[in-house]
């Protein structure tokens, strides 16, 4: 059987596959959005690439 041949199963599952793919796409967009939002909030970014990280320094008396 040629691999390109459309089985009856494929047509039957078409809409379901479409919804699953849209769901996955939405999840990717959501995770991307979360990443951007978290970076904007700046909680996770210390930005001390070229100097000592503030949290590693001993507290000054």
């Amino acid at each position: 059987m040629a691999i390109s041949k459309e089985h009856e199963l494929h047509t039957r599952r078409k809409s379901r596959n479409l919804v699953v793919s849209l769901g996955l796409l939405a999840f990717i967009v959501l995770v991307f959005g979360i990443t951007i939002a978290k970076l904007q909030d700046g909680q996770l970014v210390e930005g001390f690439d070229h100097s000592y990280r503030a949290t590693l320094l001993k507290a000054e008396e």
Partner: protein
Amino acid sequence: MNETAVISKTHEVRIGEVIALLKPRVMSLVIFTSFIGMIIAPVGVHPILAFASLIFIAIGAGGSGALNMWWDEDIDRVMKRTRSRPIPTGTISADDARLLGLWCSGFAVFMLALTANFLAAGILAFTIFFYVVIYTMYLKRRTSQNIVIGGAAGAFPPLIGWAVATNGIALEPILLFLLIFLWTPPHFWALALVTKEEYTLAKVPMLTVTRGEQVTRKNIFWYSLSLVPIGLLVSFSSVGGPLTLGLVVVLNVMMILKASQVLVRTKEVSVRDNYSKERGLFKLSIWYLFVLFAGLGVESGLAKYLDPIITWPELF
């Protein structure tokens, strides 16, 4: 299952059936109350994080709904109200429902921890556990207090929403928790009065089945009355205000009036008009929660305009 069996299966599970398995109506209530918990919190949330958090809370609620349907398959088969659910109709197998429920729950908790914080994810995990294990597996078939204690599961969402925003818990969301907790019994028992025969058939020890209608009517009344002090406390908390107070007064008067109508009725009277007052109370209870929470949301939105004009007596 072998490959032939999969291919020869005539029914393909439709997306609508999967959604039905996630209890969309319960889900919408969970989204709504956790959203309100989130926006009334004193700390703002990034809109994308708020949106994502609500989606994961909804998926968690859906997962617990699927697990509930998996466990309650035998009950759902008997009751008219639940007979058309995907498992009793055979469109989705109980095993698939369990798998979907477990995956949704785990995924939701994990993603909420990443999106919001561990506290919010922890409360979500506990809520799912409480609903599935404590309520569905344990309480529901054993005690007439099933929905009283089990109601806690439905009361957690405002706490989750608040925790998403603040990474903490405060008195205000705890009051909202209590409000939903005390609201659940009259809401469910009003429905149980209407569908009593079905619970008897399904062998679920609802209060209407074990103690009879009159006891249930009394309980509905007292629980409705207990909503008053909580509503007043919410009104005079930091999330309350004149609008909330007004709604609390109006809604509670309506609720108590309806509950007292239900209280003084006998079974004979109710049967004669097909439980119209009980149905009315059930509908009113849905509006009660919806309007009160919507009011809280509006109140918090108006706060920045009203605060300079009105000095509201906040108790705490």
